[in-house]
């Protein structure tokens, strides 16, 4: 293991729960519907995290538990059947229905697996019903995607064909670009999971080599291994270096000649580094504090430190999967404090004490920190933006340079006006 200093902390946390991933999953698979079985809080959380407004009838909703549902579980099951039937009658275009467990449904032990099974036989294959938990007592933020993907794994057909499987939601344009690059390297059979259509699932089997695009897919990775797939160990495709190592690892797994990889990636790398340069100048030497939220913190810290010259004050992460994160940890400088878990108050005390130039944090914390004079970057933006791959490295850096640039602009203005 590399030089990172691994620390742990417990206490009050300030993190989204796994339900939040529905916000991007429903966009990725437009033929799927995500039905949270939960409370008004769940409904309010998703609509607040989704940017508060809905421009059309959304492909997610909440079956809100009411007092009489709590009184008798048998009735709750019947009620859920009724809600699902109403929903499917209203939205006949739905092909896959995810029943998503929440904190209250987990605590009162509604067996969503059984409900899904019963509905599947009742619906006779017209709609596939799956279940997973996005509850905040078990999952944080991006872990919801892990749960949803894991639920899909058993539906993937078995195939021994050699293929590269990219696992984790990517922006469509980025996905197309990466697949295209893999083809140029000579890996022709590339699939993505999750697919853009929920019914168009890729196959899996002994010939499948999995390249994770996102760092939060622990359970999905395990489920794929159980189906015969092999996980390619690599850092995550953020930044020029990370994306290069990620693609090289795949190429190596497919025994592609090193010269070929090099000749294809080299011009991209030179171009990307050139594009990165102005942001590197703005970010270099600046001190960065990452609060735990999206689970992207480690790869981001690695990119911002190694390629943009930022200094790492503290790298928070909601939880640490040492195995998947090992390549990332190895690339961090000696003694970088990596804090697993959270005590929000103590962590904010450290932020105030160390006065970093930039804090990566959740939306709830951003304005209070800004009001204290500390620049921030919302971590939720990182799960919506196309940031993966060599070509996106400069865009990714720009996301972090912008708050600093803005602060400079506003400060300069104040000075001239005074």
């Amino acid at each position, binding site marked *: 293991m590399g030089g990172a200093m691994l620390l742990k902390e417990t206490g009050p946390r300030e993190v989204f729960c796994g339900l939040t991933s529905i916000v991007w999953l429903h966009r990725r698979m437009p033929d799927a519907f995500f039905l949270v079985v939960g409370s008004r809080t769940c409904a309010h959380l998703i609509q607040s995290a989704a940017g508060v407004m809905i421009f059309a009838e959304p492909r997610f909703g909440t079956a809100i538990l009411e007092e009489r549902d709590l009184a008798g579980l048998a009735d709750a099951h019947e009620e859920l059947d009724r809600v699902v039937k109403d929903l499917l009658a209203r939205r006949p275009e739905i092909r896959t229905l995810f029943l998503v467990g929440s904190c209250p449904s987990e605590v009162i032990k509604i067996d969503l697996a059984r409900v899904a099974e019963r509905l599947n036989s009742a619906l006779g294959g017209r709609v596939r019903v799956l279940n997973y938990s996005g509850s905040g*007592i*078990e999952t944080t933020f991006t872990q919801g995607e892990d749960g949803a993907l894991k639920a899909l794994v058993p539906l993937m057909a078995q195939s021994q064909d050699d293929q590269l499987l990219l696992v984790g939601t990517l922006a469509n344009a980025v996905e197309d670009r990466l697949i295209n690059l893999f083809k140029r390297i000579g890996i022709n059979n590339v699939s993505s999971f999750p697919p853009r259509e929920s019914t168009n699932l890729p196959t899996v089997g002994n010939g499948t080599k999995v390249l994770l695009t996102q760092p939060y897919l622990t359970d999905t990775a395990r489920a794929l291994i159980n189906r015969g797939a092999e996980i390619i160990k690599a850092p995550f495709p953020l930044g020029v270096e990370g994306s290069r190592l990620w693609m090289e690892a795949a190429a190596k797994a497919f025994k592609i000649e090193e010269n070929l990889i090099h000749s294809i990636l080299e011009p991209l790398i030179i171009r990307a580094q050139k594009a990165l340069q102005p942001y590197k100048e703005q970010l270099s030497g600046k001190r960065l504090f990452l609060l735990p939220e999206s689970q992207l913190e480690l790869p981001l810290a690695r990119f911002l430190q190694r390629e943009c010259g930022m200094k790492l004050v503290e790298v928070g992460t909601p939880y640490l999967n040492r195995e998947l994160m090992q390549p990332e940890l190895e690339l961090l400088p000696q003694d970088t404090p990596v804090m697993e878990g959270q005590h929000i108050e103590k962590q904010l005390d450290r932020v105030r004490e160390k006065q970093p130039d930039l804090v990566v944090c959740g939306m709830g914390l951003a304005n209070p920190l800004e009001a204290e004079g500390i620049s921030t970057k919302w971590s939720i933006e990182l799960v919506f933006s196309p940031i993966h791959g060599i070509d996106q490295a400069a865009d990714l850096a720009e996301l972090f340079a912008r708050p600093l640039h803005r602060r400079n602009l506003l400060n300069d203005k104040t000075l001239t006006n005074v």
Partner: protein
Amino acid sequence: MELTLWTYEGPPHIGAMRIASSMEGVHYVLHAPQGDTYADLLFTMIERRGRRPPVTYTTFQARDLGGDTAELVKGHLREAVERFQPKALLVGESCTAELIQDQPGSLAASMGFNIPIVNLELPAYSKKENWGAAETFYQVVRELLSNLKSEEKTHDPQAWQEQGRRPKVNLLGPSLLGFRCRDDVLEIQKLLNEHGIDINVIAPLGSSPADLIRIPEADINVCLYPEIAESTCLWLERNFGIPFSKTIPIGVNATHEFLSELHQLLGIHSYNPKKQTNQSRLTWYSQSVDSNYLTGKRVFIFGDGTHALAAARIAKEELGFEVVGIGTYSREMARPIRAAAKKLGLEALITNDYLQVEAAISEAAPELVLGTQMERHSAKRLGIPCAVISTPMHVQDVPARYSPQMGWEGANVIFDSWVHPLMMGLEEHLIGMFRHDFEFVDGHQSHLGHLGGSQNQTYEQVEEGTITTNDSALTEADPIWTTEGKEELSKIPFFVRGKIRKKTEKYARQVGCRKIGSETLYDAKAHFKA
């Protein structure tokens, strides 16, 4: 179990957070899992608060459930009191914690803290945000005044006269995430000051526990937002004999009435509404010839109870609109809304389902929608101008400028914000009229998007976009539009087209006409004028 795609109100503990965050010197320990911390962003993003809400979430996890969650709660309570040194502690639970029954309020009471502890029991599976806010405010006031009860039994709201001081009132109800509360409070303060009335306490917004203890020093209470403060005002009346005002000063007439009510309660006899200067421009703007075109505009109103009621009154009495639909998402306000609807000859729409509201708007074919941010979206889809009059809050509802709804300036703000969308609608029509002129630059952008007048709409486009949304249940008895009839209809400005179409169809059915041509349109027009 209720299928919800979007909800107007959050759960009741969000209401409790609104009270706690509005106040100074209180802290709220909320027994809740980590996901519930999303609520902070409502305050820091939507209201742009530069401070975190004063809330400690216990963020218990599944693995804690096997052990002693009560111990975990106590740890958080101890830490929160030590760190934040609150003057009063609120303790409660969110939906999930309610199920595991740790009784955090009782735990806190047993820990020997030397501060008032307010135990909040807010049933998450049956109640909603506004109820939670009202209950929290009531419980906080009750707890803080619990020692005073026996001393102050008699209360004379006109005692100020003998005591040789100006009368003073409390403004109760303004809170964070309430619609324009920040500016309403300033406007009402200004208004009352002009009438020689002082403010004793404003709560919960900006008040401390010490302020709340001073509540009984006021002569009367002003209940500004019944959704939040009515239960507290009733309790203060019952236990301290302090009367409270019931008129909500939104609109010119209501502001007059509000002043009369206050003067009467306080025993000031100098107030004569006829003599008092109406400082709002709304009255004259509404009388000026330019406003002729506002006559009989059909408006659909939906929002919280207080703002929907006020909007209906202003629309009818002060702007000369016709109210064609009214409703609310707050069940607590269903009764007054139903009564108001009945007076208007309408049936009130009481629902939390935005799709049902959208269907009702489509059916009523109004020319202006006054609603929440969600109705603004629905209206946009239907191509109808809209102004926002009520919560749920959106970042756009917290403008940088002074923008109250109450008092004289509030009436000005309301005139502008309701009439501008209508003017824009008229502008759309003009753009449509002039688009055949050679000087016209094509691609003129419409604020109503594809439904505005800038595009050469065929009847089919119009129908797809605005008209058929609610007509899936066409029956054989329904008349059919001929091509010629459709063409005639498409010449009518889009913002009245829906109304004309409905009226014409109604006429056609009445007279048993099966095919609507251009003559039918003119027949209908004459028929309804007659």
